[in-house]
């Protein structure tokens, strides 16, 4: 019994309190990667489980130049454990487009992607307005060279554990094990 309790406490240490709903998403991608004006692009958002999701909306905007958003918005359709939409690219080769999306859950809570701390899934992120982030629909012919440097943020993977998180996990763990050993003596 004591060992079981010990095990449960330890497991609870591994739960990242900030993960929350973000763990639902396993991948975000768009295809094709090489985007041109007029081409149809498919956004695919993959989830572990979509049973708790009411709907997913995506917002497609022109980020640069002339920051504008397209309307109507893109309603994503469920397909197995994914939400998918296809739309036509309006931006020409000198313009940068991006998208973000909002997941609405059955309990009427919602979450927006990407955010400052969310996983970028290998995609590049732009923040043209403070606190509003977009996955950049990269035209590989242009590359990020045309993008204003302040707009462009390098893709990072926030799945990786920071050093402080490792300490957060490891220190209480070591303490508990040490105490347990003393008890056995």
């Amino acid at each position, binding site marked *: 019994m004591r*060992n*079981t309790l*010990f*095990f449960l406490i*330890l497991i609870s240490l*591994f739960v990242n309190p900030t993960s929350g709903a973000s763990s639902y998403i*396993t*991948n975000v*991608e768009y295809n094709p990667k090489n985007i041109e004006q007029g081409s*149809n692009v498919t956004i*695919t958002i*993959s989830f572990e489980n979509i049973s708790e999701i009411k709907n997913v*909306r995506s*917002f*497609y*905007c*022109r980020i640069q130049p002339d*920051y*504008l*958003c*397209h*309307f*109507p*918005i*893109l*309603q994503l*359709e469920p*397909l*197995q454990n*994914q939400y*998918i*939409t*296809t*739309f*036509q690219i*309006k931006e020409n080769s000198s313009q940068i487009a991006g998208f973000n999306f*909002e997941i609405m859950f059955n309990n009427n809570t919602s979450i927006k992607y990407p955010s400052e701390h969310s996983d*970028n*899934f*290998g995609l590049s992120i732009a923040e*043209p*307005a403070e606190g*509003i982030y977009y996955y950049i629909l990269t035209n590989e012919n242009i590359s990020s060279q045309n993008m204003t440097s302040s707009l462009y943020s390098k*893709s990072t*993977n926030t*799945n*990786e*554990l920071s*050093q402080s998180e*490792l*300490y957060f*996990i*490891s220190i209480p*763990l*070591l303490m508990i*094990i*040490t105490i347990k*050993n003393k008890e*056995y*003596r």
Partner: protein
Amino acid sequence: MKKLKITSFILLFLITTLSTISQSHVGNTPTNTSPQLDLNNSNYPLFDSDKIDELVPIGDEMRDFKLYDFYGGQNATEFNLSRYDDKILIFDLMASWCGPCRDAMPEMVRLYELFHHTNEVEFISIGIDLTEPDADLDNFHEAHDMDWDFARDYVGAMDDTTLWSNYGSGYIPTYYITDKNNIITRSEIGWYGIESYVDEIKSLISIIDEESPTFVSMTSDYDYFSINSPSLLIEVDAQDNFGVKSVIGTAKYNDITIEQEMTYNYETKKFEAKYKYDLIDLYAANADVTFTFSIIDWYGNTYTHTGETIDVKFTPDNDLPEITFLSAKEIENQNSLSIDVLLSVRDTFIQHVSITEINETGLNSTYLPQSSLSGALFKFEFQLNYSLDTNLACFTFLINLEDIAGNTVNQMFEVDLIDPTRSSNCEQANTTSSEISTTQTDSAIFSIYTLPISLIFVLGYRKNYHIK
């Protein structure tokens, strides 16, 4: 005991897995397993491109609509275009999730404050996304002090359709301006700055402003000048019956004049500017700084205010001088070799410098006063002179710096006498940087490997205990 073993195994597995994740630093890019979409299948919505760039043209009469005040709840007041009879109307089609709509709001608020008091200009913002939660619109409205009419679109707002389907363009934000006869004088996608809107409205209203703006107050915000705050923030409050367009501030001290256009702060609704000074010069002069402000309103009326003075009292800070070794180069003299050492010192003002030779080999060193200074950063140059027959490979010296606040730093440096441009023969010269990197590496190794190793040790110890 068996449970303990299982628990230990699971723990080790988890820790190892987590450590592996932390080490990988690889983007999470799983293989593409997306089902292939049939693009011809109408179940998947393709973006509607038909409406793009289809704004209702200038010169058309705005058609009537029927909207409800957003905050009316069940008893929301119904209103239509007649609410704006004999008014100039700024018509804003927006959504709360729309970044550019949000970006435009501070300037829209400023525009509203400029003209609403004339009783000739009205604003209306309309949320055009029918799927948008009321709470999102509410939050947006609250966040931006939108003190004008606010409504949301719906099917039936304009005949049997939405307002967007008649006036939308495929992009937001979309703006229209109508004159007092409901004729569209401007239709535009995107917000391109307040100035063109001011000009448009000025051409439509009957009032002409001939009054000059006035100066209200000036405030300065600084505790002291130091390497961390080498500038003086000046804030000016100015008034005008139609609002102040710009303020140009001129600061004068000694023979120095700095003129710059001040920035409008949308939160404080005041104009502000940062003036940077040469700190040492200012300290030496104990100067007063005198300001002149040229205030211009949106109609071009100007008022010049003079006589604002700040007695800049230089208060020494507690920041330690920071010394950086920049370079060393060999200089050949007739009877000896000299090495020219260049250091960079960052501080408010250095009042004392001393150099101590650690080697005590009889080398002569003479230091020259600082050769250049700029703000809080200045370069410090001196020469080491030594005879040709010395066998010394490295020359070690101690720099002692004291700033005007009495903050003192002692820092040791080494110069490679064989080749001053490199430092490989002087191990100590690299000590600082290598220590830092070693610390980081050790720390990372600890976080990744120490934990599992410790666990194995502890659990192994425990197992031995039970065996005994």
